[in-house]
């Protein structure tokens, strides 16, 4: 288990996405305010975060299934 107090500062890495995808995200962020995204970066991080969590769940299910 990671030490709560020993936590290090969060680090960042850059990744690229296709321009078309970037433009579509920009359109969504700018036109659909009720989704609550204020930036492209926020949208992308949320999408990746959801996928990681979903992947983790799948992995656990598979482990249980043997």
């Amino acid at each position, binding site marked *: *288990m*990671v*030490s*709560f*107090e020993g*936590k*290090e*500062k*969060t*680090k*960042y*890495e850059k990744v690229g996405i296709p321009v078309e995808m970037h433009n579509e995200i920009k359109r969504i962020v700018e036109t659909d305010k009720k989704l*609550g995204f*204020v*930036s492209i970066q*926020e949208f992308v*991080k*949320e999408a990746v*975060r959801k996928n*990681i*969590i979903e992947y*983790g769940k799948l992995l656990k299910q598979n482990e249980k299934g043997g």
Partner: protein
Amino acid sequence: MANSSISFEEEEIIRSKFIALLLSGAERPIKTRINFQKELFIFSKSFPKFFDSFDFVPHYYGPYSRIAEDIIENYDDYFISDKNGIYLTSEGKKLGEESIQEFSEKNREKIEISRNIVRSLYDSLSNDELMFLVYKTYGYTEKSEVIERLLEKKEYLASRLLKKGIITEKRYQELVAN
């Protein structure tokens, strides 16, 4: 390439623990999502490593962490969000108690004092009072949909904060100044 010594899952546990620490600072729930976001923002501001982990951005109602929102929604073993507000399950209470024990004595005292100040001072504020105070103290106004409305009634909001003992007379003067 930057390497992180902890995994995503471990980082999630740390974030959950930090939220549990805040929520265990009082017996009552934090009554609204806006209050929760602002209190977490202020609480984590004193602890840069944790603050950084929540990735607060300027949002429609001031600083906002989507990660914190997700954690409250997704980890229902620990957290409840309903018409009463945001609060801990019995497992969440255990998590909060365990978390505080992980700190050294010196840091434990610091974190308990900060948490208790945040909960005792800011739980009693309305959304408008808290948003106004946070905007005037920390900024994060870029995407705000409410800042103009709040500034229009700054005298009223600042006087409410003064009356509730949240700010000093000097701070009142600063808040109402242009």
